[in-house]
């Protein structure tokens, strides 16, 4: 195998595995949008907060960041519900979509300030003994953490799918997405669904955050880069479509890894935006979005 072909395959592997992590983060983002038409600019900050939580549980109590995911998921879910109740519920329904941009940005700044007071601004990194290991298969390195992250995303997304499609709550959520007024007439408490839905979106940040901390050094300011990537993924996938977010995450991370490997990292984000623009020109609703409210 020549060097450049080998590097290309390695780039594709890296991209696909990293895509899993992004899919996890973006699924929460798109879910929140789907349910409430809220563009949650705080999702990146929630991921970073979850990364800090698992970092602290690891460094202070020696708890493995992957094993603490259930715990951080519960915490993040609670926080998500609180954020919805305190900051988003008071918004009037008509202008909530626009206002939510400002409000969730404020929440992101609040979280950022809180995190830089508590954890300072130095970069942190969750360093378990397996954080840097990788498996070699046919000369290609499969980073253990990335493989775990990928599997974890599949599990989390699978659970999310079951929750949305096989439970009463899931049906209420989907009903609210499709037609909030009819749903309410049929006895769905849309306010409760909105709060729980936001909690659910925030909860996906827990698993994403613990993996994020294993993969990259992070500090409280990391959420700015994250949120711009997440928004792009969600738009590419089609706002509100969880499946679309997964596909978009894979496209984004694979194309940027391949371009960075084959050409230059300077071009990788450019390439992605070309794809994004092409998709939006040809299919303005995104890859899997629908023109009308409805799909999730």
């Amino acid at each position, binding site marked *: 195998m020549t060097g450049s072909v080998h*590097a290309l395959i390695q780039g594709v592997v890296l991209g696909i595995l*990293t895509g899993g992590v992004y899919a996890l983060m973006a699924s929460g983002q798109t879910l929140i949008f789907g349910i409430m038409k809220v563009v949650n600019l705080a999702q990146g900050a929630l991921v970073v907060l979850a990364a800090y939580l698992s970092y602290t549980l690891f460094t202070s109590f020696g708890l493995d960041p992957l094993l603490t995911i259930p715990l951080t998921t519960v915490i993040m879910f609670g926080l998500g519900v609180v954020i919805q109740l305190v900051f988003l519920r008071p918004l009037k329904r008509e202008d909530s979509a626009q206002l939510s941009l400002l409000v969730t940005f404020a929440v992101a700044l609040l979280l950022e300030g809180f995190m830089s007071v508590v954890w300072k601004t130095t970069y942190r990194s969750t*360093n378990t003994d397996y954080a840097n290991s990788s498996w070699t298969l046919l000369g290609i390195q499969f980073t253990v953490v990335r493989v775990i992250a990928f599997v974890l995303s599949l599990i989390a997304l699978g659970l999310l799918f079951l929750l949305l499609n096989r439970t009463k709550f899931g049906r209420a959520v989907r009903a609210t997405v499709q037609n909030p007024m009819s749903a309410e007439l049929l006895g769905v408490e849309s306010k409760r669904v909105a709060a729980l839905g936001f909690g659910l979106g925030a909860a996906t940040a827990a698993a994403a955050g613990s993996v994020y901390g294993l993969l990259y050094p992070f500090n409280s300011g990391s959420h700015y880069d994250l949120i711009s990537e997440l928004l792009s993924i969600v738009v590419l996938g089609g706002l509100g479509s969880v499946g679309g977010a997964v596909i978009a995450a894979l496209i984004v991370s694979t194309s940027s890894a391949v371009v*960075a490997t084959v050409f230059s990292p300077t071009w990788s*984000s450019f390439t992605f935006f070309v794809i994004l623009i092409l998709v939006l020109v040809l299919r303005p609703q995104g890859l899997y979005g629908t023109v009308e409210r409805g799909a999730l």
Partner: protein
Amino acid sequence: MSSGNRLRGIATIAITSAAVLLLTSACAGTASNSTSSSAGTGSSAPSPSTTAPLLIGASVSLTGDFADSGKAVKAGYELWADEVNKKGGILGRQVEMKIVDDTSSPTQVVTNYQNLITQDKVDLVFGPFSSLLTIPASQVVKRYGYAFLEPAGGGPKVFAQKLDNLFFVQPAPVVKSGDVFADWVLSLPKADQPKTAAYAELDDPFSAPIAENIRARFEAAGIQTVYKQVYPAETRDLSPIMTKVAAANPDVLVSGTQSEDAYSQVKSLVQLKFSPKFMYMSNGANSPVEFPSKVGANNVNGIMSAADWYPGSPAPTSPAFVAAYTAKYGGSETDIDPSSAEAYSCGQLVEAVAAKTGKIDNATVISSLHQGTWPTLVGNLSWDAIGQPTGSFSLIQWIDQKLVPVYPAEVSKATPVYPKPNWGG
């Protein structure tokens, strides 16, 4: 929905208390900013100017982007003031530091130096943190004819101003900090020298130029460049670049890094199981505590970097500095930020000028420092006409999970280890 209301109430309290916490800590910060920190007790009776305290002003970033480094600079200034006052001050005058916060803002820093010089009428000024703030500050300081000893503004644009009152208190301009690695590599027997080199450089005025200087030296010496990549600052994942580095299989990897990109490079290389024979990182690898905690302690061995002050530094005044630092601020030697040592060195220079000339005014400081060599914590310093230090940094290497100076011979405490040991995983 009573439970919802209660939950909402609790949440409101939680959020407001968090906000209050933030506000109070911010206010506390502001309050302490405006107080001048008087190290000595000061004389109670009004005294003639020769025995009045020597007032030294500085603006540092206590909030904002440079807050962490700014606080380290402040710690260095205040520690020096304490120490010099214990020895009876400068020419019998107690030193008083007046330190104000510039919130990491290039406009605030201008106001601050203006106020320090015209309102507070300080006798001398020391510099802020970062080249970004040093440049506007140095213009103000120049206007009033003050000497400008500055510990943290070493970028090319600082010297492009061609100021004769400015002195960068580090051994060499930032872009030349890696030259010591090239010196060492090219001093090796020809057979041991690397034949091929790869360069991974952060697109930042303090990172890429360091690697580029090394590349120019290496290419002139016939070391072939097999890969070079400059990456933008927002590149979080360096795995693709490291994949290319591994595919190019260079003998030496020169990384023009800042901090988190250095950690990411090492992590990626470990995951890709590629370990070059020589590895130099301009920054990130030179922090004794942060680096091993980010990349894993058993992955640091063999990596080289450059430093001016470091734990175990051979500078004669270093042991006393470390003892005073740990006594005042706690912690251990490895917790000391080099920025504190650089700031402390500014004070040492003032002390040395006063001891040599018997005078302490700005004209004397400026004319004295332009001649001769001045020993400080960060090495023996001398400057050219525009304030660029003419020395070189020390080459340091991780050996047995400790940072050790290895080159040049006068600072070396161990033989450089090469080829670099493989990753610990």
